[in-house]
């Protein structure tokens, strides 16, 4: 068995094992912490499709994370206040149903990604980074100046949303739900990377002109990747909002986009489990270092610097070898 496969298996099992141990010890806070890591991992797995496979360094993925979060916030807010979202032409009610909220989060973030991608993918390099950053900030300032949904203060949801057959207020059950989604998305991303679409996307990252000569349009490939990537990050946003039972404009902030990139770089760009490793490491460092110092991010920054300088393949690359393989 390849070293990376073994490492991926260990990383995959680490979350449920740690959550199980925390459950046995009665440490519900730790279960919530692991759930947070799993949601961050999901968001970064989404971004990794665009960044790792497609080479698209997006500094605007927080826009999709925030859209997912606000999709949950708005639907749940109207459900808990018994007010319709809209009653002009027809009555549109809110909902507390997680599957419905997820669908709305996925659809709205995919739609936003389609619009943002269609414009920003006409640029490349630093211009692409800047235009995605600009879009992210547009959503951020829009959320701040939207008093109907809390403006700068955000929106609190008093009770976690429902999932059929589960008590989502139970941290372990909510973790299981998040972990199941993360597993499904990881499986799908693994398949996608080996499918003709993923291979062509990876080829377009290496050389767009060569890809064109075999009849593949790099723009369309990248746009599809960007939309899928945005949709997955949007789903993560909805779960994150449900975890905290709170949404605020900070979900749209460029620092959030930066954190997603940090997860990927720490874990390994383009590696299937790179974002998982990076998110786990980041949340662990946050948990261990933030009580020690208010400036704990300096230590994370130092680690990131060391990874970029001496371990270009990230955590996975350092332990499993630098070569990215698709089998």
């Amino acid at each position, binding site marked *: 068995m390849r070293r990376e496969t073994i490492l991926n298996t260990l990383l995959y099992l680490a979350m449920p094992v740690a959550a199980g141990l925390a459950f046995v010890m009665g440490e519900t806070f730790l279960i919530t912490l692991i759930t947070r890591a799993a949601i961050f991992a999901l968001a970064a797995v989404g971004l990794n499709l665009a960044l790792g496979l497609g080479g698209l360094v997006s500094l605007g993925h927080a826009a999709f994370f925030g859209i997912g979060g606000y999709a949950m916030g708005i639907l749940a807010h109207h459900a808990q206040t018994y007010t319709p979202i809209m009653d002009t032409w027809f009555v549109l009610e809110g909902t507390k149903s997680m599957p419905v909220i997820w669908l709305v989060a996925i659809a709205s973030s995919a739609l936003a990604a389609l619009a943002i991608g269609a414009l920003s993918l006409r640029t490349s390099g630093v211009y692409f980074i800047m235009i995605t950053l600009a879009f992210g900030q547009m959503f951020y300032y829009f959320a701040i100046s939207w008093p109907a949904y809390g403006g700068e203060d955000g929106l609190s949801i008093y009770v976690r949303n429902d999932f059929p057959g589960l008590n989502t207020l139970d941290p372990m059950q909510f973790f299981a739900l998040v972990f199941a989604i993360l597993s499904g998305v990881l499986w799908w991303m693994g398949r996608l990377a*080996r499918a*003709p679409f993923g*291979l*062509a996307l*990876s*080829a377009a990252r*290496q*050389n767009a*002109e*060569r*890809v*064109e*000569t*075999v*009849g*593949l*349009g*790099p723009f369309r490939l990248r746009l599809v990747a960007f939309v899928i990537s945005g949709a997955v990050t949007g789903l993560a946003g909805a779960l994150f909002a449900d975890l905290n039972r709170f949404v605020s404009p900070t979900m749209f902030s460029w620092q959030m986009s930066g954190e997603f990139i940090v997860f990927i770089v720490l874990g390994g760009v383009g590696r299937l489990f790179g974002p998982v490793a990076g998110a786990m490491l980041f949340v662990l460092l946050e948990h261990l270092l933030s009580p020690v110092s208010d400036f704990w991010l300096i230590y994370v920054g130092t680690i990131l610097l060391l990874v970029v300088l001496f371990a270009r393949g990230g955590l996975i690359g350092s332990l499993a070898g630098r*070569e*990215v393989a*698709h*089998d």
Partner: protein
Amino acid sequence: MSLLELESVQASYGPSQALFGVDLDVAEGELVALMGRNGMGKSSTIKVISRLLKHKSGTVKLDGHDIAALPPHKAARAGLGLVPEGRRCFANLTVRENLIAAARAGHWDMARVTALFPRLEERQTQLAASLSGGEQQMLAIGRALMTNPRLLMLDEATEGLAPVVRQEIWAAVRTLKTETGLGLLVVDKSLAELRRIADRAVILERGKSVWRGDMAALDRDIADKFLGV
């Protein structure tokens, strides 16, 4: 009707004009050699045909349809296959992945490509970057065939290869010519091989087609005058 037809094609790289009037045509099942000394516009002509370089005047027709407005990937989908100069495989993909990434439905599939180049079968799981020059060239041809083109263009396909490997590539080109209806446009420096294999030749001199005719009619004087051999 010709499969590919170029008429009075002129093209530039910014302010620098590279093609001053290229005329050529390739019929189905025909192998045409595009010849000329270095810097005479052979690769630029290939780029114009594959739409990687836009021409500023003249016409480029595939199957009688003007393809001037097509972007490169749509030209490739219309049936133009390119084996670019310098091999240029997708280095970080395996041999199999290189072929899968380019695959489109049609006569050419993985089995037929690996039957043409058995070495690719052996190297399926190897990264393209780790292949020898000859194997990379076989992969580049295989990848172009996987797009199921109607016209295959080979730009300096044997350049820099060992003589034994060159023979393998020429053998494959011969197979393509005799056993498929593909139109072939070949740029190569080996006049001896082209004489053996090509039906017709077009010679470029300073970005202009200066001689067109049957390969048999390409005598020593013409070769001396335009090819410097």
